[in-house]
């Protein structure tokens, strides 16, 4: 019992350190640097320690220090309690979704079955959707409690956009669930071992899920809730210091979440194409039973986070390539295109499963 608890603690610490500790800070740098290189600029490179800049990586520390020491401003007329609460409500679900995200398969280490997921729920994918839609409250309450017109407009847009795209996102997933016959993320991941990855079986489902997921994350081209040129900064206009940092962190962690969910559902989770776990185990057979399992485990975790990094890269490219959709275009795409198309996708998948 104690050993199970210890293993779970190690997994929790690993996930927290890789999302909050690694991806969230590094992505602030990646976003600035990648956009700069893409646009033939140089990007952040001024923060230095003893004249050593490390490609601008010290900007992460500088930003963190700035956010910690900045004045925490609450505007007059704002609801103080809700204003303080909402960044927490926005950030916690983003981290909590990782509880069911598997980042590796099952391995036998020294006579113990170790599964690379913190909590292997039967309804895994539903848990992810349920928890991540709680974050909507954070954004809406943040906009409403700031006592600012721009914030309120941003909050309204957030609410309508999130609700519209949640429907489409849920429906695009159903095709995948039908193909793999399970809602458990570990099972969906394990089912793709043979090389029939989700995006081969569900190409339209993949495209629609990607679109809806970017819209859920409120990033450009769907950044109407925080549109800089229209609404200053949308729902977090009145936030400063670490509260602003929490909204920012939530956005970046959600990017990681989307990358992880997409990897599991459509891109073969932790598997290397055409190499099953048994193949890998026999490849590292000379190390002994336990150590070969260990090596394969680390390889799978590396492959998984490599794929996640690739999807974050793609999201960044999309963010710095496309212009913002108009509000009516967002609604039109959500209700008139994605919703019927995802329903058709469900029907088509059903027919395909029935006859083949």
């Amino acid at each position, binding site marked *: 019992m104690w050993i199970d608890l210890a293993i779970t603690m190690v997994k929790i610490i690993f996930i927290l350190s890789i999302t909050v500790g690694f991806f969230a800070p590094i992505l602030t740098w990646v976003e600035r640097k*990648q956009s700069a*290189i*893409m*646009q*033939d600029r*140089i990007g952040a490179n001024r923060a230095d320690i003893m004249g050593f800049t490390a490609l601008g990586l010290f900007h992460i520390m500088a930003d963190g220090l700035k956010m910690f020491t900045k004045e925490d401003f609450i505007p007059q007329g704002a609801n103080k309690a809700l204003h303080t609460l909402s960044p927490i409500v926005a950030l916690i679900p983003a981290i909590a979704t990782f509880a069911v995200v598997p980042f590796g398969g099952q391995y036998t280490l020294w006579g113990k079955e170790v599964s690379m997921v913190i909590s292997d729920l039967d309804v895994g994918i539903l848990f992810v959707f349920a928890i991540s839609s709680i974050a909507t409250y954070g954004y809406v309450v943040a906009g409403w409690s700031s006592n600012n017109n721009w914030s309120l407009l941003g909050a309204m847009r957030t609410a309508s956009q999130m609700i519209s795209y949640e429907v489409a996102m849920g429906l695009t997933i159903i095709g995948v669930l039908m193909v793999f016959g399970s809602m458990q993320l570990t099972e969906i991941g394990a089912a793709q071992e043979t090389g029939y990855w989700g995006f081969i079986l569900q190409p339209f489902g993949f495209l629609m899920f990607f679109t809806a997921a970017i819209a859920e994350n409120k990033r450009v081209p769907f950044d109407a809730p925080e549109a800089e040129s229209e609404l200053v900064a949308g729902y977090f206009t009145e936030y400063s210091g670490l509260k602003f940092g929490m909204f920012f962190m939530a956005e970046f962690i959600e990017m990681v979440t989307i990358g992880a969910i997409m990897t599991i559902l459509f891109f073969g989770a932790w598997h290397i194409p055409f190499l099953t776990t048994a193949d890998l185990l026999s490849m590292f057979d000379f190390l002994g039973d336990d150590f070969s399992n260990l090596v394969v485990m680390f390889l799978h975790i590396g492959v998984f986070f490599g794929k996640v990094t690739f999807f974050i890269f793609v999201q960044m*490219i*999309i963010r710095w*390539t*496309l212009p913002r959709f108009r509000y009516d275009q967002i609604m039109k795409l959500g209700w008139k295109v994605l919703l019927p198309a995802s329903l058709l996708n469900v029907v088509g998948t059903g027919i395909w499963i029935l006859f083949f």
Partner: protein
Amino acid sequence: MGYYVDRNVKMTWWERSYIPEILRGMMITSRHFFRNLFGFVPFFLGKKKDREIFTVYYPEETMQFPIAYRGRPVLALNEDNLPNCVACGLCEIACPAYCIDIIPGENSGKQNKVERYPVKFSIDYAICIFCGFCEEACPEEAIFMSDQYDITMLDRKKMKYEMDQLLVPVADLKDRMDFCRKMYGKWNY
């Protein structure tokens, strides 16, 4: 000149499906990204880069301005280590911002070769508008626009430069002098 924007452009089915056009845009941005990311490799092999990054690291590097650029006005110091200025006051009159202040003195024989010389000559760069009228008005080729533009300091009073700060050896101003002779000679005052 009326210009009509046709807002009812008929898009082809290919364009209306969005995805190919989005992929095309992403191809362009990724091409720039990878070319700039790995651009240093052919650069070290002696090949010229396809497209340079135009950014100038400002305080360390500065841009080379064309000779027609009007930076801060400076006074020319001739070969005899004396200012060319004869304190005629034409630049003071020409100045639209009244930033030039001259106190003339009568030559006792050692200050200059002509009758008058500037006892005091100051230009307040906080007021100067960098129009170049003083240079145009000067009959003695004594005042020139240089290519320095970054006159920044914490105290506004320090922006008033006195004569010893303004003097620049005439050798440094040779290009600008040639340019002025060409340009103002063309107009035949």
